[in-house]
């Protein structure tokens, strides 16, 4: 029986494959996503965006547009009631551009009309005179060139100096790498609806990842106290980091408050690509030093991330890219220098894997180069250098939690390889295009391993609040944790069942009437909001035990789901003990504190780490450059499995996204403009591109301090799957392949 089957066979609480409470609704199409929301007298909003990557706004004339029948409002920068600036980590981006535009797609004006088509026509009728400027679109040049923003072009320059970076190895490998701009490409585009309220505030229903961050930014832009901006979660159709930043939020609220009517917006697919941040494109240089046995002794790197026109989370993404640049390996000496820069390209920010993805692609290629130079098996080399508990990262931080990298790698390497190739033409490279016969195919195998920090880093006060309310024995849970598909709604039921034995759980509406749960990102919600729910349930148990003690004069303790009197005279089930009782326990959960990095990039900046490894098997048609991924196998460090089916879902989804970056997914920029902002040309993997994903092992070593010992599992699958696939293509072709996505011509046209 596989580890997954064993868990499925169990019956309740933590560790079983409990089904999603919203699963049937979603499968049947009954679930209300944010774009399904409506109100009787609502208006439709639309955004006028800059067609230029860099230009001065000389004049905006919307008189003709405003006179159109059905148009209720047109607002520009001057109409922003509060600070015309927002930003997830650092406010530097205008709600509406006021003097210049800095990227193609930057919002310039917003319209409310009685019909979406009228709103679009009105947008077309707005006249903007631009003085077009030369855009800065090269991230390397941007470091030293004239600033495109008052705050300059370098958002963050980070240096990590560890040990003695002058040490020279007997084996030296060097390489330059590039990562293209990937997009989250969630299926549900941005949408929301804002209602003006009679107290002068506004109620915003929106698909997002972090209600309270949205609220604070909206309130500041509207010049309202936080309590007059109420943000409610609307059904989210995927996120992957792309909904962490504010998009239409302030616009909707401005239009609703200006017109006194509810206003709804839905971005179409094209606008969605313009309306959210992307994964940072990266240029990376590495020089690895190893001794003759393959032991890493020094790593040098330079990392440039293109943040686009505004900061978003560039600073934190850069920290991840640099802190974990060497991968899950022990490296005594390192000099890593990173820049997160502004350009006139579209803004970049959070996406699943958050900075670790970019450097992992490069560093894992370097590991293979060392293995090749020494004729060592690539898994052997990784095992030789694998981090263990008690080891120190290049940031000087000691790993105090679990670090089963050896177990991850060993279990993966011993997993059986797939059968030799097929003759079925549709299963060979080229797929339905019937380009390739078996005789044209070379098979390759590649490995990669990764490290991911869990939760927020660098001293951020990271917390989540939750309430457990018992009303006559019935339980309700309140949390502002956003469900984006990761399974928190299922986990809440499992935690309550595990701790209180109650199976009917009401999850209260998710909004800002409770304190923050933090963002659904950084693989953090199970630990943070799951931890908060657990704590709230435990607080109810404590209150109940104390009530029982004061009522009966005997003290009780909880064993399993029973409450046993310490004198042994009484035992009652917790469910019946709760019957007829009322509690309301409100708790805040924090992980242990982290600290900023010092001027040498040293410090205990991170909370906990999760590890994964991937093995890719590919068939390559070298002459045409076409690749068919035959199988991805993976092992992952999960701490403890809370829900096996959901764990599998996270792994499969993450691997598919990693495959996308390896072979297909890239927003192509020409002079700062995205030329493929559609699903015809932004190619996501289809069912024919995504191979069987085999879970070799889920390593369960409970993480100290983590609720139930569970580590976040959402991000690791996307990080090392990409380099494993490219390593497999290199194995088949012997090509360098230093850029992802790997295009067919990168393989076919090299001589």
């Amino acid at each position, binding site marked *: 029986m596989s580890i997954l089957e064993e868990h499925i066979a169990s019956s309740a609480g933590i560790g079983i494959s409990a089904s999603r409470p919203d699963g049937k609704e979603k499968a049947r199409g009954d679930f209300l996503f944010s774009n399904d929301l409506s109100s009787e007298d609502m208006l439709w909003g639309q955004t006028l965006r800059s067609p230029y990557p860099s230009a001065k706004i000389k004049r905006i004339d919307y008189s003709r547009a405003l006179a159109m029948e059905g148009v209720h409002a047109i607002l520009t920068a001057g109409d922003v009631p509060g600070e015309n600036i927002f930003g997830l980590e650092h406010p530097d981006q205008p709600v509406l551009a006021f003097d210049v535009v800095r990227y193609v797609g930057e919002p310039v004006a917003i319209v409310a009309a009685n019909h979406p088509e009228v709103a679009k026509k009105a947008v077309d009728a707005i006249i903007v005179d631009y003085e077009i400027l030369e855009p800065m679109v090269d991230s390397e040049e941007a470091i030293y060139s004239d600033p495109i923003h008052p705050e300059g072009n370098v958002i963050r320059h980070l240096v990590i100096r560890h040990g003695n970076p002058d040490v020279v190895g007997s084996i030296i490998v060097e390489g330059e790498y590039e990562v293209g701009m990937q997009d989250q490409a969630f299926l549900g585009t941005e949408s929301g609806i804002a209602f003006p309220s009679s107290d002068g505030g506004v109620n915003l229903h929106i698909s997002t990842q972090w209600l309270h961050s949205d609220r604070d930014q909206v309130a500041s832009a509207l010049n309202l106290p936080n309590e007059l901006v109420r943000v409610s979660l609307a059904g989210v159709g995927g996120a992957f980091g792309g909904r962490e930043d504010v998009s239409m939020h302030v616009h909707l609220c401005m239009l609703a408050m200006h017109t006194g009517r509810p206003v709804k917006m839905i971005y*179409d697919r094209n606008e969605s690509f313009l309306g959210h941040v992307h994964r940072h494109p990266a240029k990376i240089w590495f020089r690895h030093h190893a001794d003759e046995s393959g032991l890493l002794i020094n790593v040098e790197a330079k990392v440039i991330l293109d943040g686009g026109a505004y900061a978003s989370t560039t600073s934190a993404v850069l920290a991840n890219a640099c802190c974990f640049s060497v991968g899950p390996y022990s490296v005594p000496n390192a000099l890593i220098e990173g820049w997160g820069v502004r350009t006139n390209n579209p803004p970049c920010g959070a996406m699943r894997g958050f900075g670790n993805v970019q450097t992992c692609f490069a560093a894992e290629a370097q590991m293979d180069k060392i293995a090749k130079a020494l004729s060592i098996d690539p898994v052997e080399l990784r095992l030789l250098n694998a981090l263990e508990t008690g080891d120190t990262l290049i940031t000087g931080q000691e790993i105090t939690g679990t670090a089963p990298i050896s177990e991850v790698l060993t279990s993966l390497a011993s997993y059986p390889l797939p059968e030799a190739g097929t003759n079925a033409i549709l299963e060979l490279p080229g797929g339905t295009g019937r380009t390739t016969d078996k005789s044209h195919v070379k098979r390759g195998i590649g490995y990669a391993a990764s490290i991911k920090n869990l939760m927020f880093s660098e001293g951020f006060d990271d917390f989540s609040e939750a309430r457990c309310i018992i009303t006559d024995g019935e339980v309700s849970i309140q949390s502002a944790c956003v469900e984006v598909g990761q399974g928190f709604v299922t986990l809440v039921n499992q935690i309550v069942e595990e701790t209180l034995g109650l199976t009917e759980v009401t999850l209260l509406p998710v909004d800002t009437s409770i304190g923050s749960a933090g963002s659904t990102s950084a693989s953090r919600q199970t630990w943070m909001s799951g931890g908060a729910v657990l704590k709230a349930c435990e607080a109810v148990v404590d209150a109940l035990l104390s009530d029982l003690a004061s009522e009966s004069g005997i003290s009780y303790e909880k064993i399993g789901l029973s409450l046993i009197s310490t004198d042994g005279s009484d035992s009652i089930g917790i469910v019946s003990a709760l019957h007829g009782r009322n509690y309301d326990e409100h708790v805040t959960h924090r992980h242990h504190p982290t600290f900023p990095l010092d001027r040498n990039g040293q410090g205990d900046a991170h909370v906990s780490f999760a590890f994964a490894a991937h093995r890719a098997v590919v068939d390559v048609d070298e002459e045409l450059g076409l690749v068919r991924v035959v199988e991805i196998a993976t092992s992952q460090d999960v701490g403890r499995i809370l829900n096996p089916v959901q764990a599998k879902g996270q792994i499969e989804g993450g691997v598919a996204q990693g495959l996308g970056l390896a072979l297909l997914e890239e927003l192509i920029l020409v002079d700062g403009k995205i030329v493929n902002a559609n699903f015809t*040309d932004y190619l996501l993997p289809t069912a024919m591109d995504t191979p069987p994903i085999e879970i070799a092992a889920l390593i369960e070593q409970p993480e100290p301090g983590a609720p139930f010992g569970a580590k976040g599992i959402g991000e690791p699958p996307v990080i090392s799957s990409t380099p494993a696939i490219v390593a497999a293509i290199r194995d088949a072709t012997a090509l360098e392949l230093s850029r992802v996505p790997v295009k*067919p011509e990168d393989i*076919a046209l090299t001589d």
Partner: protein
Amino acid sequence: MDFLIASSTENLCNLLAEDPTRQLLAGGTDFMVEVNFRHRDISGVIAIDRIKELKQWRHDGDSVLIGSCVTYKEIEQGPLSALIPALAQSARTIGSPQIRNAGTIGGNLATASPAGDMIPVLLALGAEVNVRSKSKVRQLRIDELITGVKVNSLSEDEFIESIRVPVLSGPQEFLKVGPRNAMVISVTSLAMVTDIEKKYIGIALGSVSASPCRSDEAEYFISQHIDWDSMTVQSDVIENFERLVKESASPIDDHRSSSSYRTHTVGVLARRALLRIFRLGI
């Protein structure tokens, strides 16, 4: 704005004669995307997907007559796939199952995309297009119908009624290169069809010129080196053949591919198609 449903081809002739600016909606797989993205101005629309005559096909002797509203799915999976295998192979490469259920052969032709997947097959087979209006009926070759990038030679009041496709007596191949294994716009494509009795080989290319084009010189050259009795081709001419196919292409650079990759792959596809159909002789 008029939204009309044509009940028959005769009704359609009248509706177009009344107001030739009305646009035809068949499967809608290109049309609706253009409408949604407001790349197409419409003053009137006639839905033609319920006209029975246009949804039928029949096999008469040495050809099949395919109504313009026959879907990709029917061509891919029905009895037509045995009669015109390369057309079925091209249909399989188009979009998702939902798109193939809706999209039509007439739409593929009228849209006249350089990447229209069925067009190289129909070119190589020497298909003819029956075009009709209230006042006249006329037959066009594919290269007469498709005159440029997304440009066809239909006048405003005309519509494609059917396509006459010869049924040949030899193997056929359609190959298409794209970065994804399914649901992808072609970077290059190639159709090669043969008729053993007539000793005919037809070759046409997609996505490597403003409109899909025949490789006339390559066809003529290779036909000189084929032994139809043994179904072999001379091995020392393959390189030349590949070169001639490449020379018939005039691809562009765009965000989907460089022109050099297009030229390279069209040559590879030609060689591979040839060697699937013919064995190498001496």
